[in-house]
């Protein structure tokens, strides 16, 4: 099949990670009492960005090797 699943996974987690990082800066501190005072959005957001980045990187490297294009066309 011509779709490398690492593209959608990688790109989705990059966007979700970004949203979490934004939440890390915008969510009011009193909400963070729920997460025991930890800014879990920022921490986990960065984690997701790294995961998404790695997936995208491997997808890109795979496409260089096989001459496949990103999803879409």
């Amino acid at each position: 099949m011509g779709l490398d699943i690492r593209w959608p996974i990688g790109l989705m987690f990059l966007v979700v990670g970004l949203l979490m990082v934004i939440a890390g800066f915008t969510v009011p501190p009193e909400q963070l009492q729920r997460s025991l005072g930890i800014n879990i959005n920022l921490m986990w957001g960065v984690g997701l960005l790294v995961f998404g980045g790695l997936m995208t990187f491997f997808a890109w490297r795979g496409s260089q090797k096989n001459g496949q294009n990103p999803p879409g066309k």
Partner: protein
Amino acid sequence: MHDINLGVIDYAILLVYVAAVLGIGFALRRYMKSSRDFLITGRTIPTWVTGLAFISANLGALELVGMAASGAKYGIATSHFYWVGAIPAMVFLAVFMMPFYYGSKARSVPEYLKMRFDERVRALNSISFAVMTLLASGISMNALAKLLNQLLGWNYNVSLWICSVVVMVYVLKGGLTSAIYTEVLQFFMIVLGFAPVVYLGLKDVGGWGSMNQSLQQVAANPAALNLGTNANYNANAWTSAWEPLLAGPEKNPMGVDWFAMVFGLGFVLSFGYWCTNFLVVQRAMAAKNMTAARNTPLVAAVPKMLFPALVIVPGMIAVALMSNPQKGYRIPPPPLDQAVYVKAEAVVKSAATQPPDAAFQLVAQAVGKKMDPAKVAALIKDHAAQPLPMPAFKQRLDESITEYDYDGVIISLVKRYCPTGLLGLALTALLASFMSGMAGNVTAFNTVWTYDLYQAYIAKNKSDEHYLWMGRAVTVVGVLLSIGTAYFARLYNNAMDVIQLVFGFVNAPLFATFLLGMFWARATGTGAFLGLLGGTATSALFHALTIAKDNAPGLKGGYLHVAHVFPSEMAQNFWLAAFAFTACFILTLVISLLTQRTKTDEELKGLVYSLTPKIKDEDQPFYLRPAVIGVVLLAACVVLNIIFW
């Protein structure tokens, strides 16, 4: 229960996820040219993808919600479903059974049965599988939509329909390939969405060691938390997997002994599920070659082995939290209908004039649940002094109920720990599990319907275009029927019990048929067919004659006569499976010996172990050979069992 509000970011995360799964469906649309592309994929998918899809299809919402519930009820012993049940079964599937499924070129598990035995066995298996799959899908959808409704205040119908339509669209566009690819994405979503919740929960209860200490106090006096009246539990009833089990059924909250566990769950139920259920086997059959197909369950086994940390630990965290009053946490009570609240309010008002004992009886009767006398008395007193507004009254009444709705554990923890942002991620993970389970059911159903029922019995020799059209049409029908089942399960409270009962009847004997079919060339079609029927009849009879402690005869068993009482429903289920398997095994064996073989050795080549040339893995490096990986996985399982002994 208070509703919780989602922020813009929460909705944004949800939308990004939905866009991603739909995008996968649309990207794959142009590859769907024949019914094979749509229903069984072009068999070109890489192993890591089929492997993750293999467990993701099984990781439906019921699995997540149910395993957390069992973690709370039974503690770490729930891991037997993984380390005794799933992993050995997956290794067996990979090493011994996959060569026949993949090598026979069958397009489905029922089709393999037709090649090995005859049309009758295929018809029996495909009909029961198609019905069960739809029912399972509906049950799971009902369970999740209900939880979202009760705990988050989301509209039941909207949750149900939106999720179903999303699944329908991406399956219609990209067929099984699309289901498999999205399952991989959903796998990562589920793991990465729940991991931080588990982390926060563990941190809150003071880490693993401190959680275990709390759980030991709970085991010493479970009645204090209304977790059962048995005061005989081992001190490590919630924290050790084997010791309480070996000490006997009265020493562990599951109420089972080691034999029922190892034979009933480990051997019969788990092997029956993982090795014969087309829902999961279909994923392995989509792999690109024989080695990849055999390695699929092995790739799946690695994360599966670690899942208890994600799905069982939350249940244990919930109980540990409850044992510490300062945390102000309880597992949610079973939800009541609005009508019950109204009735209870009137009763509470009028009960103020009654003597305390009689007043308590009246209220408990009106609510229909076990209640705490002191809290009910206080509620009656306060309500008489100054009538409480309905929301406050509801909350006080809920707090007085001493029963638990264990299925609410996961969502209650998500609500407790997740600020906006993480909340969106965790809820998306929950919806992802819902969708992966449903897509798994729908894609297995449409293949079995199109190839094993429609093509085999209704419309033979049509063009492939016709079958592709049928595959698509039945995808829509399957989704609609699942939605119908969901409403049915919602309408009748005991619909779920009935359905699960039927699962048990049909699934328990099935593994015996496959075992004899694959490893004994002498097994005949008549033997397999009658054995399977006999096994199912045995389950039904066993259920009619036994019952679990504290259950009234009826749906839960014992309606003909109570010949034996089990300490728990779980023990009853495990023993039922053991009996049904044995009956099917013996019947198939005896009837096969009494009947003529209809298939020659030549016809059974590739279908039966002794008549099939052994697969040589010598061209593979040793660390990629399924047998080697299988042994390593089993060893890892043994180590896990010893660590949590």
